[in-house]
């Protein structure tokens, strides 16, 4: 019934050429078309930040973008970071200071942290707190996430 549109989108270094409905949300494209389920959907109205990914290096809410809007873009999801065997320093930091509990919001926090630390490799606690203010977490009270962001900065500097 709906005409499909061709898109070519690079996700985590792989180019995907697909035909999608114009209304397909980017979050659904990433999760259900590409099977990259680390990106989570918490509110579908751009507030909670669980679906945060990097589009051409900048954080964006994948639940409030249509896939066709990012045709030609380069996207990074949580799967672009570390693996179970070898985690990224940001992931290591989150585990070390218990900055996650249920883990549902965590991929959004990780991607937010990636962009933030690129611009500010040695943040104060206040700056780190401000940086994650747009991501919701119900489990942790944020204190340990602030600490994890700072610890991640130290780990990345040491790499």
């Amino acid at each position, binding site marked *: *019934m709906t005409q499909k549109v061709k898109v070519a989108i690079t996700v985590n270094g792989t180019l995907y050429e697909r035909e999608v*409905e114009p*209304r*397909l949300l980017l979050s659904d494209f990433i*999760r*259900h078309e590409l099977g*990259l*389920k*680390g*990106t*989570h*959907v*918490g*509110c*579908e*109205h751009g*507030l*909670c930040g*669980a679906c945060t990914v990097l589009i051409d290096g900048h954080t964006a809410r994948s639940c409030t973008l249509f896939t066709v809007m990012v045709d030609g873009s380069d996207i990074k*999801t*949580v*799967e672009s*970071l*570390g*693996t*179970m065997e070898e*985690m990224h320093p940001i*992931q290591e930091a*989150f*585990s*070390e200071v*218990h900055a*996650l*509990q*249920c*883990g*549902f*919001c*965590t*991929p959004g926090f*990780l991607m937010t942290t990636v962009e933030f630390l690129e611009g500010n490799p040695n943040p104060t*606690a206040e700056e780190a*707190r*401000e940086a*994650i*203010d*747009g*991501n*919701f*977490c*119900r*489990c*942790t*009270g*944020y*204190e*340990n*996430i*602030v600490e994890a962001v700072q610890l991640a900065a130290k780990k990345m500097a040491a790499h």
Partner: protein
Amino acid sequence: MAEKYVGKSIKRNEDRRLLTGNSTFIDDINLPGMLHVAIKRSDFAHAKINKIDVEKAKALPGVVAVYTAEDLGDYWRPGPLQVPPPSVIKGAIFNARPLECIAKHKIRFSGEPVAVVVAENRYIAEDALDLIDLDVEILPYVGDLEKTVAPDAPLIHEDLESNLAADVVQEVGSWEKAVAEADVVVKKRLLVNRVAGAALENRGIVVNWDSNLSLLTVWATTQGPIPMRNSIAKYLGLLENQVRLINPAIGGGFGPKIMSSQIDDVVIPWIAMKLKRPVKWIEDRRENFLATTSERDQLHYAEIALKKDGTILGVKDIFYHNTGAYNPYGMTVPLNTQAHTVSNYRVPNFLTEIKMVFTNQMVVTPVRGAGRPQGVFVMERLLDAAADELGMDKAEIRRINLLQPEDFPLRTGIIGQDFVEGVLDSGNYPYALEQTYEKIEYEKFKKEIQPKARAEGKYKGIGITMFTEGTAVGPYEGCKVLVGVTGKVSVVTAYSNQGQGHYTTFAQIAADNLGVKVTDVDVVTGDSGQWSWGVGAFASRGITLVGTAIHNASLKVREKALNLASKLLETPVDELEMEDGVVRVADMPEKFISLGDLAMRSNPTRGTVEPGMEPGLEAASYYGPPHGATGFGCLAMIVDVDPETGKIKIDRLVVTDDCGQPVNPMVVDGQLHGGLQMGIGEAFYENLVYDDYGQLVTASFMDYLFPQATDMPDKFEIIHSQTKSPLNPLGIKGVGEAGAIAPPACMMQAFEDALGLKDMFITESSINPSKLYHYVQKAKSA
């Protein structure tokens, strides 16, 4: 046995898969041929259904089926009740009106399901919702807790005489006597607001019916997998083992995910069997706000009787409790309120009455705290009002009334949510108060910091409040522990995990008893195919009940392993030790057998066995306490109120918490952090608000203010107190709800202290910048 793990902060076993996107949450499950459901919900709060026309929706390409209550035939039924009526309490009235999975004749709240669309994908299913015509006769909405039981109120359930859902009176001692002896009686009308659980992951269910195997596999985000399994089996005519209910990874629970007999667990399995295709339903955020349960919303008429010196003689609390349109979760929440009102102080006379009322609003069931914050709010506010009346210090009035360590165990005479007369099992409340008092520098704040700030035009105030957390109630939980042929250990339970860290804390207990690494213990939660029995994740009971069962089961396995090793190594058991994954002769470390080899040998394949022999290094255990274990603590905060904007900053937050023996202190701190965040949210940010027509006007994160990072204090300063529970061998108590209990009471006291107005008394558990600004203006003109 060396306690290598219990009591230690260690990194969590589950973190790696969660951090790398390798956990499977409910919406991550996709099965071949799977269909998708969207639910048509009523926009009306109260209406009689004339006709639901689904023909246009059915005709939409891609739609496979549309069902209403009529289509369910005899399968449609209300309920059952998830928690039984409180018949154990003398004179209790309870008008059971269990949840209707889909409205049949009548709509009783905005958001109630009226039809279900099944389609090839979710987009089409949602398109079809707009094509369903709902012909109704609109009835007057009733949402006010007092007006709903007025004689002329429209009836929500016409077969009842009024909208009274329950009435429960409990009295200890005599309130009349307290009043007769009192120098002063202080009365307050106190309002507790309504908040959402708001787990970051919404609810969901995926069902697959295999007719050849007669096996219904259900993946669900429920906090109570076994009761849900039993209910699905009963109504679909299946045996328990023909329904395999699996919890995938769950993105937070906080209470509302415990509800069953809702549209998802009643109707989706029925559809999967009928259509013989896998079916998925994922709740969206709007549905979660509108129709998933929420909590608080009570109106209290409370009184406290005291002597001139501040000694409490009695408390009376008559309160209205909104249960919403139905009361499927029984009296759990308001009974918790009653039980927690008098749990910190000596209150010789206590009269309390619950008037549970129906309204045209979403159903109320526990949200982290579950009635406890209301009881604590009432008691703490009464003490503040009494202190004002008597010219006493807020900390001092608490100090002189606290229960003392020698008072425990204390029978309270109040029957709680577990239908058992309350027993406070242990505690050291004065320690909690004094530690907090010292740490936050209460006296220095009052004498130096506050006056100095005030001189600079800053409004800073302090609050100090006590709380208890009744945790770890029965009836029971259980588990199975196995040492496998690889030497690794399996712990299997049907308890539900929503992020509490069970994959680590449960493993810590087993690892200590079996001499293995904690990373070599694999924990399964919430899979009825692997472990068939349990109750559910509520009342902060996981680590205490399941943890104790694991402790007991792993000791049985240890004994089995040692007995077998004793035979194989020809050495008496008392000369053996179990460490590093082997059983060895204590003074001959080269003489050993690995746990894996023992496991292999524990299943003989030829020969005969001794009578009563049980194969495998495996054992099951159940644990049920006689009553709950009492966590407790003291919370103090210093707040700064911006007089220009009514915005606030929490300068300091100090909490002393006692949850007995912590299994993993890092995880305990995490639970406190999250609880405190919810409590702060409730007091200043979060609020579920209905308009005059029964429409929820805060049904998105645009309107419902979720507490964010910059709303929190820089640090939660936590002091640990450890009063071990005498009820279980490890001395554990729960902690899941502790943080969420006291913040509203504490913050209101702190706001009043900050503004220093003589006649200012906040009677609500939730305030916001505009209300606070109003008070600031009054303070300035005073």
